[in-house]
């Protein structure tokens, strides 16, 4: 049994930043992470970090751009926290040695990015995330913060009062990959989830194999609502064969998109008459797919991204990494020829419902980074707004978990006044037959110790159960089926019938999962076991995304519905919330907060 003040789950940018902040605020901190920190997918972020640093720019402009980019589904207190605090967090990173790209006078460079009214994206070549991740890990090493790497968190130790808002989190239970030991980690003050993305629910994604939405699924089953899960960002420039990301920085520096007829379609077909290639990501992704669907794609699959005219010197200076990626993963020389690109799953705007300090409705449980939804990004994230989210909210949650007591403006958790949702589904949802749900049924455990102890027992049993079976279905088949249906049916363009088909497929996958078994009998580095548990999480994630997508019958941001082609502000200025209750999802709604510190962000038509 391990015991700390604060346990951070996941060691990418958000986890590392929150660990540093909590420790600086006096807490005894440990990080528990399924990968070694430097393997985290923050390292793959390319483009940059938005921060209003310079004269002529200010946080209010950044907030305005972000609210507009979110298509008015972002919550103003979170958006304003992001834009106000990003500059100091960026300067802090620079003082920790991060190798930002520089101007002639030695100051940090900034470049234009999609949806921004000012060139405010700071960057380190086209490998900004790599530098951010390593810089933060260096500071964790410097501070001697304990890291349990290659420990996979199986579940949260949450008490089981009927009302999730009365529950509290006392730690986590984790599986040591190298040995197969299952151990409890008690958190005296708080658990911070920083588990990153969930892109593995799709088969064409920029996300790492490790991005399986574990944190969202665990928090969800512990009773924390998941927010706006249908809001999935498809990045317009990924390599067709692998999904490897080609940074928005290419377009920021002046890269141009062409269709098969050599047309600069963003302008020539009127998708974005002002901003062209630098329109918001959702706009560009739909434009590309429309070109392909109308027969103007290349090989009926992709379009071309051309940066040759920028010249070798500028490309090597600012985008060198892109040359390597295009060469290694698509066999294309970006200096000599245009690069093939198509949209790919990239980012989840939704996630675990939190306030602007990362707090969930469960006492002592926090979430930050991509797994969380504060909500900063609403229905569409702007390029360059993910990395500042990691450091701003990582910092805030770390301080808060360590004892800071600032009052939030965003409310979390379901109340009696919450609007109840309703959606017709072709099959029953959830898993009424499981007892995985931490909080279902039982009496409230008397003490924190008892909650942790009971969770440990349950998880040990679960691991035993999975290892004991020697016949059945292997998780890889189930995972592949989920990825296929999500990519086919819950993609950029969404139709009611297809969404329902996805729910049928997910249901079938759940049924098959009842027979899942782990073929590898070993307790040494059993990745078969870990992936089998991840696949369980992906099932819940897929269902949440699809239910949200079916419920939201409007077109907002990244969420396009064939049958509902307009943004319906009268009805839908609200977040889609899904809560797990007795093994089934419940749908409800929470109003969006548009009132900022100085002004209210009035929804306007969104054009670029």
């Amino acid at each position, binding site marked *: 049994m391990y015991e700390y003040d604060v346990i951070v789950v996941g060691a990418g940018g958000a986890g590392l930043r929150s660990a540093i902040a909590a420790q600086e605020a006096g807490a005894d901190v440990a990080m528990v992470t399924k*990968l*070694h920190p*430097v*393997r*985290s*997918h923050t*390292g*793959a972020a390319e483009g940059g970090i938005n921060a209003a*640093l310079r004269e002529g720019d200010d946080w209010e402009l950044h907030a305005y751009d972000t609210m507009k980019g979110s298509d008015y589904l972002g919550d103003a207190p979170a958006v304003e926290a992001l834009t106000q605090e990003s*500059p100091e967090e960026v*300067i*802090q990173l*620079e*003082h*920790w*040695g991060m*190798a930002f790209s*520089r101007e002639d*006078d*030695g100051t*940090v460079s900034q470049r234009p990015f999609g949806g921004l009214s000012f060139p405010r994206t700071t960057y380190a*070549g086209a*490998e900004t995330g*790599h530098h951010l991740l390593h810089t933060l890990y*260096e500071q964790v090493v410097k501070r001697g913060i304990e890291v349990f790497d290659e420990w996979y968190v199986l579940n949260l130790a949450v008490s089981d009062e009927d009302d999730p808002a009365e529950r509290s989190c006392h730690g986590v239970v984790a599986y040591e990959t*190298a040995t197969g030991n299952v151990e409890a980690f008690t958190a005296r003050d708080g658990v911070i989830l920083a588990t990153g993305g969930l892109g593995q629910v799709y088969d064409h994604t920029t996300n*790492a*194999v*490790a991005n399986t939405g574990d944190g969202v699924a665990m928090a969800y089953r512990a009773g924390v609502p998941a927010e706006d899960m249908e809001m999935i960002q498809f990045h317009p420039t990924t390599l067709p*064969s692998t999904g*490897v*990301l080609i940074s928005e920085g290419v377009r920021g520096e002046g890269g141009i998109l062409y269709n098969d007829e050599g047309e600069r379609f963003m302008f020539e077909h009127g998708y974005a008459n002002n901003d062209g290639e630098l329109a918001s990501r959702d706009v560009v992704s739909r434009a590309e797919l429309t070109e392909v*669907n*109308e*027969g103007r794609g290349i090989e*009926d699959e992709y379009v071309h991204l051309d940066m040759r005219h920028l010249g070798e010197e500028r490309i090597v200076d600012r985008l060198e990494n892109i040359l*390597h990626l295009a060469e*290694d993963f698509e*066999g294309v020389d970006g200096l000599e020829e245009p690069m093939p690109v198509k949209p790919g799953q990239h980012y989840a705007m939704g996630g675990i419902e939190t306030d602007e300090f990362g707090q969930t409705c469960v006492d002592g449980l926090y979430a930050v980074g991509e797994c969380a939804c504060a909500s900063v990004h609403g229905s569409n994230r702007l390029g360059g707004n993910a990395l500042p989210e990691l450091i701003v909210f990582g910092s805030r949650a770390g301080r808060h978990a360590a004892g800071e007591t600032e009052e939030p403006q965003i409310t979390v958790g379901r109340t009696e006044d919450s609007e109840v949702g309703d*959606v*017709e*589904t*072709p099959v*029953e949802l959830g898993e009424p037959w499981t007892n995985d749900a931490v909080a279902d049924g039982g009496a409230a455990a008397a003490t924190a110790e008892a909650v942790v102890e009971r969770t440990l027992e349950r998880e040990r049993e679960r691991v035993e159960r999975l290892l004991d079976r020697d016949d059945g279905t*292997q998780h890889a088949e189930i995972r592949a089926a989920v990825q296929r249906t999500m990519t086919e049916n819950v993609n950029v363009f969404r139709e009611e*019938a297809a969404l*329902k088909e996805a729910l*049928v497929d997910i249901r079938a996958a759940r049924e098959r999962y009842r027979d899942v078994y*782990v073929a*590898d*009998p*070993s*307790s*040494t*580095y*059993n990745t*078969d076991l870990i992936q089998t548990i991840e696949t369980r999480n992906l099932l819940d994630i897929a269902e949440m995304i699809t*239910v949200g997508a079916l419920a939201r019958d409007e077109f907002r941001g990244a969420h396009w519905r064939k049958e509902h082609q307009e943004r319906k502000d009268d009805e839908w200025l609200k977040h889609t919330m899904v809560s797990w209750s007795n093994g*089934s999802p*419940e749908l409800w709604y929470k109003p969006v907060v548009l009132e900022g510190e100085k002004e209210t962000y009035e929804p306007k038509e969104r054009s670029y």
Partner: protein
Amino acid sequence: MSTQRQQPETETESTETETAQDRRLEKKRQRAAERERARVEAEERAAADAERYHLKVFRYDPEVEGKQEPRFDDFHVPYEPGMTVLDALIYARDQFDASLTFRHSCRQAICGSDALFVNGRQRLGCQTQLSDLEQPVRIEPLPHSEVVKDLVVDMEHFYDQMESVEPYFQTEDRPDGELEEQRQSRENREKIKKSTRCIWCGACMSSCNIAAGDNEYLGPAAINKAYRFAMDEREGADMKQRRLEIIEQEHGVWRCQTQFSCTEVCPKDIPLTEHIQELKREAVKSNLKFW
């Protein structure tokens, strides 16, 4: 949420409301579906007599019967254009043997998890095209490391060496309330740029004869990390001095015999040997005592 269920609707044509665009899109979809069918059929035909790549993969598990003695397993993986060593391993695991174990995550040569010994050379699995390799493709764990299981090696020693060179900015945090960055010249940023690309994959350390013979040798990755800080003008002269002392220790830069094996295998093209040589020169210049 409502639990009322609705029968899956059968598709009905609503031609009245269909626009020309819808019809075009529908045609387009049908064509795409036909193409997809043709592709699947072609794939199946191809798979039947397909070109298969022959992999010979190292297997070991300290506690599983039959795997306690290291052995090589053969896998025959159907080839697709663009397939990497990592893709082939994933295929073999998901289709043939779920217990086949290897580290991997990002698939794009940035997380540094999948450094392997492929046909006698350290490479990243995700960055290595099968078509560039002779068959059978022999895949082994990184040499000079303790094998945990199959292709997974114990990285602790590597991490310890990396962390022993004080790999973090030493200057104190930024002064309160000030929102100003430190200045760094473009030239200086350029100078450290390649050294900052290290992804901690361990390929260099595994290829180094000196590291194999001297367990305390810092090794190329850690020395490169030290280089990244020593050469960064933002830390100042005193810190540089201190950093040179660290890499000048008994098991530091002077152990390197400039065999260039680390430089040859580095998947991020970091000129490791050059960096080590430059640190030697810097150390001499600063008139430190050395052994």
